[in-house]
């Protein structure tokens, strides 16, 4: 079993490296790092531009293969992801920003999964009744609404709420208020800032998971072993939870890996809307600013997330289903 997981992990690791390299190559081929100098007034000399680019390792005159090679060997030999346009090391920036992003992503996706599973089970058990219909339409509405629209709607609602209670209860810019003291105050402040983007992300996740979970649960509801459990003396509800939900959770571990990408994309927009300085912001701004190293770093971050979530899904699957354990 451990051997199997390790093998899968190595498999994903190779994919991660491949994805990162392709990310770098693509970013180098598409972005033009020199462009930001042309708009400057006075325009720096060509030699100065070239020197700057060379320093960043993104000089278009050096063959792409060689640049990729240098970038790779820097990572493996020195653990360095190169410099950003403003000469900050990408690696350090990523470390700080991913901490911020993961805070949102972890809480959001866990909450989303939890809510999604609960709503899915509830909808399946009460199939075609009003509560099931409400959950169904609500989740389609959320899935159909672009994340940034959803975020903005939440902001408007929060503003109305704050106005109604005449107090800034829900904050919606940044991840904390600078200059607060007292542990309690700081925690409250963090929660107040986390509240809206987490809700937005969790809602997105819950909407998606609940659809999958409802289907998985409907398959299980008519299963023979539920009948067996009831014939042993379990009540309908108890048989459904102990035997039904437990089995219906198995396919969810795979969906978790699949849908993680959607969540990361969602969180990227949410960071922008709620002015969080996380990895999503870095990814977007690095592309608009033609910053090759930062873009490649963002790709690396994303593929690491996929690596972790896929491995986690594998482990989860094996933990839930004795039939795949070897």
């Amino acid at each position, binding site marked *: 079993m451990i051997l199997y997981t390790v093998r899968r992990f190595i498999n994903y690791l190779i994919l991660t490296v491949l994805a990162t390299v392709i990310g770098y190559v693509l970013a180098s081929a598409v972005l033009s790092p020199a462009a930001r100098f042309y708009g400057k007034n006075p325009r720096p000399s060509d030699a100065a531009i070239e020197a700057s680019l060379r320093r960043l390792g993104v000089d278009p005159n050096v063959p792409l293969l060689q640049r990729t090679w240098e970038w790779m060997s820097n990572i493996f030999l020195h653990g360095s992801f190169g410099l950003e346009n403003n000469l900050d090391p990408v690696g350090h920036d990523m470390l700080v920003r991913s901490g911020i992003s993961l805070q949102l992503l972890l809480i959001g996706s866990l909450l989303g999964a939890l809510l999604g599973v609960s709503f899915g089970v509830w909808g399946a058990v009460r199939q075609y009744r009003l509560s099931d219909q409400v959950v169904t339409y609500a989740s389609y509405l959320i899935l159909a609404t672009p994340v940034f629209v959803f975020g903005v709607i939440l902001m408007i609602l929060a503003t109305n709420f704050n106005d109604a209670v005449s107090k800034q209860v829900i904050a919606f810019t940044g991840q904390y208020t600078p200059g607060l003291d007292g542990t309690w105050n700081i925690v409250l402040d963090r929660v107040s800032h986390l509240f809206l983007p987490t809700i937005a992300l969790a809602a997105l996740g819950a909407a998606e998971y609940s659809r999958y979970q409802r289907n998985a649960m409907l398959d299980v509801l008519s*299963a*023979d*072993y539920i*009948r*067996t*459990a*009831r*014939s*042993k*003396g*379990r*009540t*309908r*509800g108890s048989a459904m939870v102990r*035997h039904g939900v*437990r*089995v219906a959770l*198995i396919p969810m571990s795979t969906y978790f890996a699949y849908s993680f990408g959607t969540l990361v994309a969602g969180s990227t927009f949410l960071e922008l809307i709620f002015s969080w300085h996380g990895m999503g912001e870095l990814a977007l701004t690095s592309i608009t600013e033609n910053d090759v190293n930062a873009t490649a770093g963002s790709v690396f971050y994303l593929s690491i997330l996929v690596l972790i979530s896929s491995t986690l899904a594998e482990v989860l699957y094996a933990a*839930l*289903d*004795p*039939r795949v354990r070897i």
Partner: protein
Amino acid sequence: MTEPPLLEVRDLSVSFPQASGIVRAVRGISYTVNQGEFLGIVGESGSGKSVSSMAVMGLLPRNAVVTGDVLLRGESLLGRDDRELSRLRGKEIAMIFQDPLSALTPVYTVGNQIAEGLMLHDKGLGAKAAAVRAVELLRVVGIPAPERRVNAFPHEFSGGMRQRVMIAIAIANDPNLIIADEPTTALDVTIQAQILEVLQKAKELTGAAVVLITHDLGVVAGNADRIAVMYAGKLVETGAVDDVFTRPVMPYTIGLLRSVPNLVTAGRTRLVPLEGRPPSLSNLPPGCPFEPRCPIAVSACTTEEPPLLQLRGGHDAACIRAGEIESGVLHPSDVFPRPEPVAEGAKVVNERESILSINGLVKHFPLTAGMVFKKQIGTVKAVDGIDLEIRGGEVLGLVGESGCGKSTTILEVLEMTSPQVGSITIAGRDVAELSKAERLSMRKDVQIVFQDPMAALDPRLTIEDIVGEPLTVHGTSRTERRRRVAELLDLVGLEHTMAGRYPHEFSGGQRQRVGIARALATSPKLLVLDEPVSALDVSIQAGIMNLLEDLKLQLGLSYLFVAHDLAVVRQIADTVAVMYLGRIVESGEVGEVFARPHHPYTQALMSAVPIPDPEAERSRVRILLDGDLPSPTDEISGCNFHGRCPLFKLLDPARQQRCLTEDPHLRVIDTTSAACHHVDQNTLQPL
């Protein structure tokens, strides 16, 4: 005051409201089960036998409308809420279900699932004590090495072993009533015999009453005290098992009993077909629901449905003409006379010409591991050197448990390519030497009829397209095709005006006729029949079997008839070959093999088949096989049957040694061939 019966069902009706109308699955049935009694409920699919017992358990879906009453020791169960009923389920009434493969939760160990039932009804029982009790229960139901197996998951057990686990769960709390819903239908005969044995043992241990629901008259004949026959949601006949089997009164029961091939009598008389199909339960016309299929129906049968009337000593039947039948004015053979065999068509020329000849056929599948670098870790010996011979106009019955290699043999024949080892010769031509064009034209000569007629026909094609498809492959013109399809449909007993319809408009039996017509389209010499009747209801089987016999005579066909039901094989086959783990263990002329089987496996197989005759069934001594069919990947030295062989245990060590080391080959013994070293030592009594 007399004590109320253990279970009393009073005027129970169950209906399911649906968009197309109300489906009345059970229509006012009443029966009682006394303490310690064994009641068999017999009926075809859709007769309401399962629905009525689910109603007793309170396990019907929520949309079911249940009326009448169910009393357990005089106390009403209907109308109680789920919580109250769940205290009775598993404790007072336990249930065993049909499909053991899906009846256990895949994610918990079997020990957990048994312990769960124990702890639900005994709150004071600790997990440790429950686990100990689970091991005991597994031992009772005959699971080998229960201490170890208690921690195994359901997927690590075979079907028969899982059914044993189900029985362990059912008897865990010493119930007073066990309802077994088709507990052996999904299992092989040898395993069925084991499970019925365990069920009897469970009954003795707990003293519980058993309600056994089945479609197999043979299964109830040997086990039940009383039987109840259901048809279209009603009880049509009940009584002591001997009464009903020897003096059936309701024409449906008579038809059922006469339509089933019997291992003892099969092959000598034609089967009595029970034509037609049960009525739809959503729009029942007035009158007796069996009237359209009843050969002795009178006009009064169409106006009023006869109630279940008492005849004598606990024998009840629902038929207007029950009096005439009971008094002997109408004899069962007048009700369902045996059909005359059809006149033989133009007798086949070259009758003894060999149609199919298989010599030393081997098919091994490599078992590999690893995703990128595959390495062989074993070999599945699906077919391990067999010889078969079918001559013109002959039927070869190939029998054996599932997993013995029957299907692989068929596929090798149909594939028509060079086998791994050995040779296949069809109509005198070695298939290994055929060119591509010759192979295509050879396919006309060999056609197949599949097991499941529901799955074997494309639901989007009309009957005409399905039956005519083999002709399009071989380039027949459209008008010629149409003429031939009409001819074929007539041949298999279907109206040729039905050609434009789709498969879903036909019943199971009719669909199998379509499947046969399709197979006959290219005028083949050899039909491969892969379990052609095992997916059909008993009353339908007889019609198909008779059709196959008629076609054989009319068209001079040869059949390779694959089946696990020995009585069916006995009925139709001329020669029979018994297969075990990829080998033929016994073969010969069918009458000889059935009358004097020599191989212990053949003997066990035959003694496992239940006979629909209570008296014969009770006096039989069963030769039970131990355990399941070994995995075909196992390396077994010597005789591959020695691990399960009932004869092996009786032999002295010197003789046993020979079984362990020397692989027996087929050799001629009297008039048949058997692969056993110690035929002369065989004291086992079959049948």
